[in-house]
């Protein structure tokens, strides 16, 4: 990028400093709220009430909040449900997206154009949530994990990205495979998939984020609280402000440890817990996606 090696004038140096400060400010504004929540969640519960929103250092130190979260039944079932939906959903997403993309990427496939139109129409026309609800009801999927997995089994955009990727695979490689006696599926499995690894990794990460962050369908399709993913639990506690659900009616009446914990500290811990998996895969996202997007531009 703008890597100029020539001698800089004082004016340019000042400009550089201003630009760097502006970007630093943006990074601080992005991260400070999360660091503040972390500080609150790690502080001594007795001190939380007096903490302001700007500090990023805990006041005292205590793991009470995290201990409570780690043993809270609603939180634990939320984690398990999110893991099931995210894990199962992502595997099925990637598998079926790749399978469909492989077929669509074959230039001579009969009906290819019709299938493309079939997919594109869904990008342009979306009849809304109520017909979708009735389809799930008709299929008996309501209140099952499938309702939040199936409705987004193949993402039209990711499908198109993968099709473009498969189309780039040199024809000779595929011919060589079929001369070796490979059938359509084994060519897909042993030749196409390994070559598409960077694209598959990106799509896997994005499906993962999609499922982990899913809350709307989960909220309306999963009536049973025991099936709620973490996002819906978080919404209930923090956005809807359902404090008793968090602390528990009994605890609240008996003034046990849980009730002593500042609700603000509990909220802070809950928010952070919900983004832990995202933080865990974030380095991979940076590696695959940003590099991919930038190197793609360089080549183009």
């Amino acid at each position, binding site marked *: 990028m703008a890597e100029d090696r020539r001698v800089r004038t004082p004016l340019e140096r000042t400009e550089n400093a201003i630009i*760097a400060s502006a970007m630093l400010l943006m990074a601080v504004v992005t991260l400070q709220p999360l660091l503040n929540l972390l500080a609150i969640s790690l502080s001594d519960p007795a001190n939380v009430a007096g903490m302001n929103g700007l500090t990023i250092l805990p006041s005292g130190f205590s793991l009470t909040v995290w201990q409570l979260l780690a043993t809270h039944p609603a939180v634990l079932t939320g984690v398990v449900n999110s893991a099931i939906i995210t894990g199962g959903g992502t595997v099925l997403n990637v598998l079926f997206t790749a399978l469909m993309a492989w077929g669509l990427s074959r230039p001579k496939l009969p009906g290819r154009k019709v299938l493309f139109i079939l997919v594109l129409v869904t990008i342009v026309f979306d009849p809304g949530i109520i017909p979708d609800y009735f389809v799930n009801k008709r299929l008996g999927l309501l209140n099952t994990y499938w309702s939040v997995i199936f409705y987004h089994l193949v993402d039209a955009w990711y499908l198109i990205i993968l099709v473009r990727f498969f189309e780039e695979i040199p024809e000779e490689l595929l011919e060589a495979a079929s001369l070796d006696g490979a059938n359509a599926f084994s060519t897909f499995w042993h030749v196409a998939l390994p070559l598409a690894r960077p694209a598959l990794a990106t799509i896997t990460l994005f499906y993962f984020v999609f499922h982990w962050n899913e809350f709307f369908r989960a909220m309306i399709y999963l009536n049973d609280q025991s099936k709620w993913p973490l996002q819906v639990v978080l919404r209930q506690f923090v956005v809807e402000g359902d404090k008793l659900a968090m602390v528990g009616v009994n605890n609240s009446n008996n003034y046990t440890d849980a009730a002593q914990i500042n609700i603000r500290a509990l909220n802070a811990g809950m928010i952070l817990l919900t983004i832990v998996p995202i933080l865990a895969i974030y380095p991979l996202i940076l590696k695959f996606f940003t590099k991919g997007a930038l190197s793609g531009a360089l080549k183009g």
Partner: protein
Amino acid sequence: MAQADLAIGNVPVKIGRLDLFRRGAGQWWPYYAMMAPGIIFFLIFHYLPIWEAQIAFEQVRIIPPNIWVGLKQFQTLFATQVFWQVLANTVIISAMKLAFVFPVPIAVALLLNELTNARFRQVIQSAIYLPHFLSWVVISAVFIAILSPSDGAVNDIVKAAGFHPIAFMTEPGLIRWVLVVSENWRSAGWDSLLYLAAIIGIDQQLYDAAEIDGANRWQKIWHVTLPGIVPTIATLFILNCGMFLNADLNQVINMSNDVVRSQIDIVDTYVYRIGLTTGQYSLGTAAGLFKAVLGMGMILAAHFFAKRFTGKGVW
């Protein structure tokens, strides 16, 4: 193997037949078998709902079948004051986002590109891309925390400056701005990536030539960098216009509360509320269908417009 076969006398005819068979329908069934789950998914979860949407033209009865009532639900809808209010809200919020969210990533990309220290730039990028991957539930919870009148970061600053704290989340006059700011917090960083990619694609010789002409930093940005990313800006602007009726359900539903609902209730949240929480399925579907048809027209218009002027469409 094929070569070995060729060596034997009159086999070419046989190979020809085999080839014909291979190129015919028989060759493609494995591909269709592999695509089947995907195709079935699209039919069931995207086309069956279109069929189900006929409920918009029906009166739902407790004991089926429903009665066909034609456009009656739409007449009811268009006579409903609230519907026009949510449509207006949708347009206003989208317009505000187009004016105050859309340009921000462009500025971010230009500034990122001016950072001379690659390591520093990487650190900044790693920080500012993160919120894009957080859910609106999380972002809403974060904003409730930082906008809290009693102990939120923003009001700590407001108070330090000597003013009274402001209850942003429950202030009807400000809640739309909360949507704008939170949208920026979430996407200003990540969306700049598209522009940054376009900037990297700009021919370095153009910068060298500008330098020889004695251009300073701002002249280079104005005369080389900006013109270089104008096609990207134009494409994304047109596509954004095409998405005008999608004011982001997930954001609004998590930022909303009874005090401010009238200001930020959009078509999608309205459909959800009257359809799925109060059970007016037909009226809700009619509202959804109205938005879907209008939205389709806008996306198609945006697509062909973008394709015509920039060579790149929605797909």
